[in-house]
């Protein structure tokens, strides 16, 4: 299978008055057609920034992509002009955002906004676009879709707005959909509905999806593969079974250990990953996770571990001691 998108050595920096924030550090991976990739990590680990880098929507200044290649369908997106990039956005790669409360323009009807997105990339009359918009809203499961087209965003609930955003993202049938924490602002039942909806749509339309989240539970349900990010770099990546069952990186173990499980004995405490993520202004020389890691040695502090493949594309980890750690569980 040929990868739909291949990211090589991506580096994104923010040049602030306090110094250079190293938001994305040498990220390389690829996604295949129709694959669902989960990107997990805690706040500020570069998940969203690396997604915005793909879309080239980094606020500039202060942000800048300083290095790397983003090969999408044989073209390097970073070499495209703004005008060509504009055609890629929405038509080939679409993005949905975290906060459905603010991602729809409050002064236009929902229908108008979907129609606009449709007409931007397709040669459609207003009537055709409106009909399609109605179909899209129905597709994402909004009751009375035709009728709701003329509603303003404030007349929609949070879950409905996120559905409308998904409809807008899907409007031009993109090959890659980037979902930036689309369920974080929603309550759990709505989260489950949105996850089911996206899974269903993925099966129907067959696009690749990058699902960015800090919730390992959500991606466990849907993703084929997972990238675990820490301090702007991928520290463990692989097939979902490998990540959950054959965890190699102590940080991933920590993340999994911090989730409640149904088979935990009652009254048992959740383990937390101690400490805070490193300051992206001054990253340590060695492993970025070393300061919080129970298994650290001198080598961890001195040298940065490379992302080594254990099982080909199916599993890779950036840790010096993964062989030693293997089998141990944090709890």
């Amino acid at each position: 299978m040929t990868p739909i998108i291949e990211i090589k050595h991506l580096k994104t920096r923010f040049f602030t008055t306090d110094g250079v924030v190293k938001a994305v550090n040498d990220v390389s991976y690829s996604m295949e057609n129709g694959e669902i990739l989960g990107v997990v990590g805690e706040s500020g680990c570069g998940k969203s920034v690396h997604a915005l880098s793909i879309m080239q929507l980094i606020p500039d200044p202060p942000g800048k992509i300083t290095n790397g290649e983003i090969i999408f369908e044989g073209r390097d997106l970073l070499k495209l002009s703004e005008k060509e990039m504009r055609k890629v956005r929405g038509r080939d790669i679409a993005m949905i955002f975290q906060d459905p409360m603010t991602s729809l323009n409050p002064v236009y009807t929902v229908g108008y906004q979907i129609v606009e997105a449709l007409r931007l990339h397709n040669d459609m009359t207003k009537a055709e676009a409106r009909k399609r918009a109605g179909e899209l809203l129905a597709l994402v499961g909004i009751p009375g879709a035709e009728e709701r087209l003329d509603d303003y965003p404030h007349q929609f609930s949070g879950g409905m707005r996120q559905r409308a955003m998904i409809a807008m993202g899907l409007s031009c049938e993109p090959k890659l959909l980037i979902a930036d924490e689309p369920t974080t602002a929603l309550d759990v039942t709505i989260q489950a509905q949105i996850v089911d909806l996206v899974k269903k749509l993925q099966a129907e339309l067959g696009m690749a999806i990058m699902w960015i989240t800090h919730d390992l539970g959500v991606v466990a349900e849907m993703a084929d593969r997972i990238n675990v990010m820490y301090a702007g770099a991928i520290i463990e990546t692989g097939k979902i079974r490998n990540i959950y069952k054959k965890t190699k990186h102590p940080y991933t173990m920590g993340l999994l250990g911090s989730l409640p499980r149904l088979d935990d004995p009652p009254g048992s405490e959740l383990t937390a990953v101690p400490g805070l993520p490193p300051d992206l202004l001054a990253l340590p020389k060695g492993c970025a996770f070393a300061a919080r890691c129970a298994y650290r040695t001198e080598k961890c502090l001195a040298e940065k571990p490379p992302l080594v493949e254990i099982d080909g594309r199916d599993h890779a980890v950036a840790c010096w001691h993964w062989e030693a750690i293997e089998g141990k569980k944090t709890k």
Partner: protein
Amino acid sequence: MTEINPEEITVTDFAVREHRSLWIDAWRRLISSRTARLGMFIVVLFVFSSTFAHYFLNYEPKKDLDYSLKLKPPTLVANEEVPSVHIFGTDKLGRDIFRRVVHGGWNSLRVGIVAVGISLFFGGLIGLFAGFYENIIMTRTERLILYGITGFVMGILTAWIAAQPFQPFLLAAVGIAAAYFNELYEGKAQRMLIFALLGAAVTAIPALLVSSTAALVCGIWGALTGALLSRPLDGRFFSNVIMRVMDIVLSFPGYLLAIAIVAFLGPGLEKGMIAIGVVGIPVYARLTRSAVLSVVQKEYILAAQSVGEGHGRIIFRHLTPNILSPIIVQTTMGLANAILSAAALGFLGLGAIPPEPEWGAMLGDSYRYLASGAWWAVLFPGLAIMLSVLGFNLLGDGLRDALDPKLRT
């Protein structure tokens, strides 16, 4: 127990509600406020009476003169002494004050609309672009335009000194060339040297035809321009420069600046409009920019970009409607302000030229007769100014409450 047949249940269209836009909501809030209704009433009365008088009641100020009726007090019925009815009395030339107040309204309305129009158009555009490009990176074409405009604006000075109107175009061309060159060539010092020389050449050589002093001044300015153009300019630079210029304009007292502009342009109502309009530009520019800054970071702007919409579209279709409310309020208040400023200029003899009916000029004409008891000649134009300003201000207050319910106390 009765069986329920699902097919018999009529589905009430619970999902169907009234499609109310924010503007309709705002309108309802506006008319529910008593003071706003009063303001609206005064404004409508003012606009209607002055427009009606202008188009349907002929008035020729130059022929309106009757010394026999000089400074007569207001009367409601005709008598032997005053054969015609003057409900507001007459002024020093025997002119009916009521008539002049009504016709003067047209002038005030015109001043208000034109002056605010000038401020709003230029100030609004400046604010929109400054706020937007401060946060969003310019595309290549936009950067070329920025370089061209920078060259052009810098060239206005040399064109003025050497009286050669083609110079701004030369410097604009240098700017565009610099934009291309900057992308290709890395060496900073050489770049600066090349363009300083080029700038000096295109300005100084034509200026030599005028005089050597002009050539020297133009050459220095041209070199500075070239050096500036050799640097990477971006939206932040544009925003900084233009907003500091706005700050400078704003640091002058408004009336003083308006008087200075009128003195430069010469008296007359039209010149007054321009002066008042120019003085108002920074207010709108700053207001618009601050509103843009608060909206441009919102996720729906990012979403619009991620769908692939262009900058022009985002500015005018997504940003503008979302920042309209503070601007509408400011515009309404600004109308009151412009009417007041026009009256002030008229009072000082810098606005409307005499027989033309204008409230400020009428006050200026008549205040000397106050001591001899002719209170009516001052009271009624004064009242007209006060009421129209009050009307616009009340309406503006009402609009502010209606458009931004969060501000309501």
